[in-house]
């Protein structure tokens, strides 16, 4: 078994009376490309927000690259090597593509070495992004804004890429390119964790799939193992 880059132990979060994340325990192996799936409201985005420190935890702990990051500031976690793209695209709309790509911490990428630099260059090339492009980011096509956000995160040289529905609103061809680039980034050794409910996309990329339901880990395994289970199909169809 490959060493875990991320170990999550008993993660808990409650908003008022609603339990968003209930005792989630999960290991992500270094170099894995894992998908978190589940119906709407399963707690997938909250799970990512907790990993990044955007909400305060009610219980549990997170160890990243052997270091306890449970109480770390979000910006510190990014400097440690976490990179997140949000569910709703959050590029800097009124700034140019050039400015968007200049803002991330290139210095950290530099410290992470040649591999981080290669991944960033690969993303720019395969996503057809120009570092000198003065077009306002709000005026580029939707799928390119999604790609731009991934490239911005890669510009900081992360060791673990967290993508929250990276293909939302994309046409099939664009989704296909996204899948291909993510697979190739993963081949360079980059660990990627994707929240997604487009099962066709999950099938294209995932080596391992975790199903979240009502804030808990409901199932875990390969895509075929998970989709073969009747109870997983039931929750997707709203029968449970």
């Amino acid at each position, binding site marked *: 078994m490959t060493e875990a880059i991320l170990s999550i132990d008993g993660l808990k979060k409650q908003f008022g009376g609603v339990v968003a994340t209930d005792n989630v325990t999960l290991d992500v192996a270094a170099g894995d490309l894992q998908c978190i799936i589940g119906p709407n409201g399963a707690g997938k985005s909250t799970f990512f927000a907790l990993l990044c420190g955007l909400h305060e935890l009610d219980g549990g702990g997170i160890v990243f690259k052997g270091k306890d990051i449970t109480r770390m*500031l*979000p910006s*510190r976690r*990014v400097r440690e090597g976490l990179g997140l793209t*949000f569910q709703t695209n959050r590029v800097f709309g009124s*700034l140019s593509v050039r400015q968007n790509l200049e*803002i991330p911490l290139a210095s950290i990428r530099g410290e992470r070495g040649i591999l981080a630099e290669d991944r960033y260059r690969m993303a720019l090339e395969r996503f057809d992004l120009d570092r000198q492009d003065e077009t306002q980011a709000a005026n580029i096509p939707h799928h390119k804004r999604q790609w731009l956000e991934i490239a*911005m995160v890669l510009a900081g040289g992360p060791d673990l890429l967290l993508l929250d529905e990276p293909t939302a609103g994309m046409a099939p061809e664009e989704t296909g390119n996204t899948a291909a680039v993510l697979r190739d980034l993963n081949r360079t050794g980059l660990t990627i964790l994707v929240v997604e409910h487009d099962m066709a996309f999950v099938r294209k990329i995932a080596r391992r799939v975790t199903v979240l339901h009502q804030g808990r880990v409901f199932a875990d395994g390969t895509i075929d193992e998970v989709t073969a289970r009747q109870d997983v199909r039931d929750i997707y169809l709203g029968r449970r």
Partner: protein
Amino acid sequence: MANPFSLLNGPEDLGRGPVFWGGAAIVVALFLAVPLYLSDFAAYNVSYYLLNIPMALGLCLLWGYCGVLSFGQVAYFGIAGYAYGVIAGNFVGHSWGPMLGSLGGLVMAAIVAAVFGYFVFFARVQIWILPILTLVLTLLLETFLGQTAGYQWRVGVVQLGGYNGMTGIPAFQIGDFVFSGYSFFYLALGLALVCYLACRMLVNSRHGKVMLAIREDALRTEMLGYDIRVRQWLVFVLAALLAALSGLLYVQWGNYITPSQVGLLSAALPVIWVAVGGREKLLAVVIGTYALNWLNYQLSSSGNQYALVIIGALLVIVMVFFPRGLVVSLADLAGRRSAPSEASTARVRG
């Protein structure tokens, strides 16, 4: 580290290239030549239009570039002014008194801003509530200073003076050289220029780009690895220092200060200067601040009772028709006009 000229000539402020810098040099030369066409007294009045520029630049950085609107920049203006009055007033006859007073004013303003900013930014107070908090700070200061009329409100030999204000504040001097008339004008001009160029370098630097990112989307910026609390706090303290510099120049110019300088009306003025010029660009703010201070002075000194009503009406008109500010909108228009002509030239060449 980028070279200083590329930072000065960077894209985050109005104007680039040889034509712009040539024009700017002519304007600066016209200011430098003021003694040739203005009297000593008139030059002293021009100093008044210049001395508010540092405070406006600070607000421009904070509001226009970093997205944090402060309604209380005059608090730091007042703190520095009063601190200078107290310190320099207690060392009259010592040539180093005004220098110590200036330093004391800057330090006092920076300490208040650092403590206030620490609680605001590190407690992650919602950004929309900041205009109210900063306004409350300056109104508290006004209320406090307003009740200092009694004899007991004396620091050393200096009386705070309540609503009558503090009078007889010493002029600025370095060694035995006292700044007044033309020399004070050059001091105000020099400081305005240095502050502008330094701010221009800042906005074109990496820190400047992060400021823009925070303005656009603070959470995204934080998730790119930046501790936005520290960044906002530093800009807040810098803006306070720039306001303090204006406060120092003000008391050194007029030799008095009253609590109304930190009151509601005074608090609104920097916001108006910055908004009318165009908060997104430093140069627009410099031009707007100079023009509105000139207008206000002309209207008030000619005995017009409605000076502030006219300034207020101007704000409303500009905000309705040019929401990005007058100077920024005009610069945009000029840019759009020149862009098609460049394109057509390119077609002809092609």
